[in-house]
């Protein structure tokens, strides 16, 4: 089962602190959306509003076209997978998974066979009789997922579901989550502060900061053409090149950029990703730069470079891994003009 979600102008305050300010969001049925942002940005608050654990001060939440703003969690077609999994320690895994069906009045035989089916879906088909404390963190996480999916929710809400796992397990669980979502077709809304996780898993990323949506779109678009400076910085490392708007053009220490300035007058920032800095010729020339240090990172060499045109600036570049640049060497740097995104200085 699956349904679209609409968030209409939701605002919520905790005392004087605005946790959510005028959030508007459309999530299509069957979409995998991640809410991405630093801690305190309001992403978990928004998830609580979707799950019904928090009634927003203003605005509406529609699930499958129906107003759910004041409907309690038990009556919503959503289930939430909590950060600490919140499994019932006194029940077997099968009873945990079957709990929602038991509450819905499904008979014992039917719910147990459904629980076995869901446990098999998450790769724990043989473990139905075990207790949660016998499992590893990754396995508990799978049980929590099976428990949420057993009631066939239209929307599954995941609150930092991979936060407690180590990095390797996290990366493999990402793939699994995505595969399971494809299989069941349910709308997934996933909260995380890890942008790699968000990019690996999401159809669409919603970047949040200070209770607002900074940017939303496909991972590739947000990474390459972020709408705000915050989104650019949160999605990955950037070089911030100071710039100014002069006569309808963007002036940088390395010469003008063929871009229209976002604001006339005032200071601007041109953002350039480390991997967009190249020694191969391209339309925008940064010019000669001295290598301050460089290190081999496997798939690239990471170098700090001081450009001659702006000696007080240090650029980070990810250069091809085949040759480690020597310290003190002078390289001529280039970038494609498309790779530079220009924002007003904040």
């Amino acid at each position, binding site marked *: 089962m699956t349904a679209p979600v609409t968030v209409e102008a939701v605002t919520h305050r905790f005392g004087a602190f605005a946790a959510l300010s005028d959030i508007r969001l459309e999530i299509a049925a069957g979409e995998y959306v991640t809410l991405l942002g630093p801690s305190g940005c309001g992403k978990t608050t928004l998830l609580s509003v979707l799950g019904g654990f928090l009634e927003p001060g203003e605005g509406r939440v529609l699930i499958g076209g129906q107003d759910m703003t004041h409907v309690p969690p038990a009556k919503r077609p959503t289930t*939430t997978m*909590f950060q600490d999994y*919140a499994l*019932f320690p006194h029940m077997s895994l099968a009873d945990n998974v079957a709990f929602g069906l038991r*509450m819905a009045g499904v008979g014992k035989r039917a719910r147990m066979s459904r629980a076995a089916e869901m446990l098999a879906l998450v790769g724990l088909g043989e473990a139905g009789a075990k207790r949660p404390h016998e499992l590893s963190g990754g396995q508990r996480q799978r049980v929590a997922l099976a*428990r949420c999916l057993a009631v066939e929710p239209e929307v599954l809400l995941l609150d930092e579901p991979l936060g407690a796992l180590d990095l390797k397990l996290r990366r493999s669980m990402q793939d699994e989550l995505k595969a399971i979502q494809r299989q069941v077709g349910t709308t997934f809304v996933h909260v995380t502060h890890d942008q790699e996780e968000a990019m690996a898993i999401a159809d669409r990323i919603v970047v949040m900061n200070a209770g607002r949506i900074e940017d939303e779109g496909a991972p590739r678009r947000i990474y390459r053409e972020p709408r705000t400076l915050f989104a650019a910085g949160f999605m990955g490392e950037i070089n911030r090149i100071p710039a100014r708007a002069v006569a309808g053009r963007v002036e940088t220490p390395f010469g003008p950029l063929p871009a229209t300035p976002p604001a006339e007058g005032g200071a601007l920032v041109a953002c350039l990703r480390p991997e967009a800095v190249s020694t191969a010729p391209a339309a925008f020339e940064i010019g000669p730069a001295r290598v301050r240090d460089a290190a081999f990172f496997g798939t690239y060499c990471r170098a700090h470079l001081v450009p001659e045109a702006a000696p007080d600036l240090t650029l980070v570049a990810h250069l091809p891994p085949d040759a480690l640049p020597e310290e003190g060497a002078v390289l001529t740097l280039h970038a494609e003009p498309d790779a530079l995104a220009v924002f007003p200085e904040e």
Partner: protein
Amino acid sequence: MRVLPWLYLAAGFLFIYLPVGVLVLFSFQEGTLPVPPFEGPSLRWYAEVLGDDDLTAALLNSVVVAAGQGAVAVTLGFLAAYGLARHVVPGTVFLRALLIAPLTVSYLIVGLGLLIVVQRAGLGLSLWTAGIGHVVINLPICFAIIYASMGAQQQNAERAARDLGAGEFDVIRLVTVPMLAPAILAAYFLSVTLSWDEFIIAFLLTRFEVTLPVEIWSMLRSGLSPRLNAIGSVVFLVSVTAVVLAEVLIFRRRR
């Protein structure tokens, strides 16, 4: 070497358990006085105790009062703890203090107060009034034990249960109580043992039917006898059984 600490430990336990040991030993006395020299062993006094209708009736009364008041105290204590831990109640701190306050009042004062109230209300003294008195002293203990063990872990599980469609009654029945079972059982067994050997309140609030400590008291007035040792041993055995039962039940659940 490390003899001194062991000596100290042995002395400590000797101090605690010697009186009980002597009591139990002389319950097996053959003669009519529970004083050395020890003659026996004999089960004579146990036979006499168990053949005494007044004593066995008092013993049964004590069991019923202890079990009943324990159930009431635990139920009330749990509901108070759940309400205060899970809901925003105005004046939580004040209510909590009010619930715990009876712990600081002596049993004599609690008993006297209840005696006056019961007399004025025209209710007769009975095992019921003694049971009520024991609920008054045990409710704060049950509340404190259960309240202290209500943590974030249960709260999250309760939230998950609600999210999966459970109503409030199902949340308590299927999630909160099973998860708090160790604390609830500990509170129950503690209040049972406290009621089992409580004397002052039972003495003040009973009349014709009495609990075992009150019966023992009336027997004491006619002097020492190995009969008392035998009853004391039975009382001790019941308390030990309750404690062992609690340990087994609670630790088995934790594992």
